[in-house]
């Protein structure tokens, strides 16, 4: 019993040092806020960019004669390859030290960098979503005399977007975890806050486990929330 009491006291002590002393929990809270802000706005940029790129790519593959589409498709490919071909941490540093060199708002740099990164992945998700819509849908639309643009907008995209909602939810969770490297460039995100607690307590165990725990609750909680929403959406579809 005494043995257990000791362990218990030790844990309380460590938690107290890591969280309460010097109001360290405030750092965590601030870091968490930055993490969420970056992931959320990056997702928005990513989705907008992703849909644009996906539509360009699908349009270009259907209409091989248009020169403008060919050029846009070429640029899209460069963008996708650059993003998917390099680690996100390298992208972040390039954005911070080279491209957005005169921007002093680091959080903004992170949002743009992660948003650009996400866009390339969302584009592929969206493209797969468009291509997963049965070819018969396009054929039915076209054989009714609808143009390819109207068919895309009225028939294909609505089905594609509904199909990829789960993948987008997943992308948000991925982003949330990926922003953990924002500390590389002067951003006080959740991971960085954990680092600071680690530095000032010399107790990596407690600090790291608290941070991991917060991410875990966040990620699993969001995953559950999203899958609940998805189920409700599917049920309300009444078909």
């Amino acid at each position, binding site marked *: 019993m005494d043995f257990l009491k000791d362990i218990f006291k030790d844990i309380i002590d460590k938690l107290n040092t890591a969280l309460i002393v010097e109001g*360290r929990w405030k750092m965590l809270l601030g870091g968490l806020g930055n993490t969420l802000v970056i992931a959320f706005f990056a997702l928005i940029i990513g989705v907008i960019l992703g849909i644009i790129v996906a539509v360009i790519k699908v349009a270009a593959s259907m209409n091989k004669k248009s020169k403008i589409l060919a050029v846009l498709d070429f640029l899209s490919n460069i963008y996708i390859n650059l993003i998917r071909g390099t680690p996100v941490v390298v992208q972040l540093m390039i954005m*911070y*030290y080279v491209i957005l*060199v005169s921007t002093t708002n*680091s959080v903004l740099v992170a949002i743009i960098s992660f948003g650009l990164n996400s866009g390339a992945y969302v584009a592929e998700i969206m493209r797969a979503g468009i291509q997963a819509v049965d070819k018969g849908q396009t054929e039915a639309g076209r054989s009714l005399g609808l143009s390819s643009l109207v068919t895309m907008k009225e028939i294909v995209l609505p089905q594609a977007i509904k199909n990829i909602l789960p993948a987008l939810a997943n992308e948000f969770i991925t982003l949330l975890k990926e922003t953990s490297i924002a*500390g590389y460039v002067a951003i006080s995100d959740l991971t960085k806050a954990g680092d600071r607690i680690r*530095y000032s307590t010399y107790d990596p165990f407690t600090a790291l486990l608290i941070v991991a725990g917060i991410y875990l609750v966040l990620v699993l909680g969001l995953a559950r929330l999203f899958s609940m929403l998805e189920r409700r959406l599917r049920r309300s579809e009444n078909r």
Partner: protein
Amino acid sequence: ASTPTVDVIKSRGKLVMLTNAGFPPFEYVSEGAVCGVDVDIAREIAAELGVELEIQDMDFDGIIGAIKSGKGDLGIAGMSVTEERLKNVDFSVNYVDSKLVILVKDGNTEITGADTLSGKKIGVQSGTTSDVIATGVDGAEILRYKTFLDAATAMKSGKCDAVVVDEMTANEILAVNKDIVMLEEVLSTEQYAICMRKGNESLQEVVNTVLNRLLAEGKIDEYIANHMASGE
């Protein structure tokens, strides 16, 4: 980015300080905020300019790059003046004298001084003068951590054999880690100064004025004493 001259800083209303908050007593985190000797100095400079102080906490090895590109106005991070660095940024007058020392685990009999480091694993903070000195040790394996505190933590569990670090930070580490000892030998002596973009003479003048005043008033020693105390 345009050079952050005094006029620019004043019109913007804030002074941006770049630092790495893992270097007590010069900069560390307390009460959720970055504080330390360098922060106190920066406050004085900001007061002199009549602007607010904003602190950005980043990896030490990125500070000079960020200053060069205008991400911040002043790099105040217990930064030693070296010839390499002088080629890329301007420095203020020196405000602290420092020495590089060696930390080992208590009971380590193999490492007794600089000449015994060969073939060992040396932990340093990435991009510091410790990094430069350790890299010069023949046959040593250098482990470059994000802060000295990481290096010390790693040494405690045996991931590296020694840590090369500034003396005052070493003392802070020793204060909370009973199983670490400092060797007597001094590897080098150096001076800390504040870095800023090349050619920014107006800012350099203000910084020097403040530093000289603080030095004359003995304020800097006072700051050091304060923060050493609070570290315990």
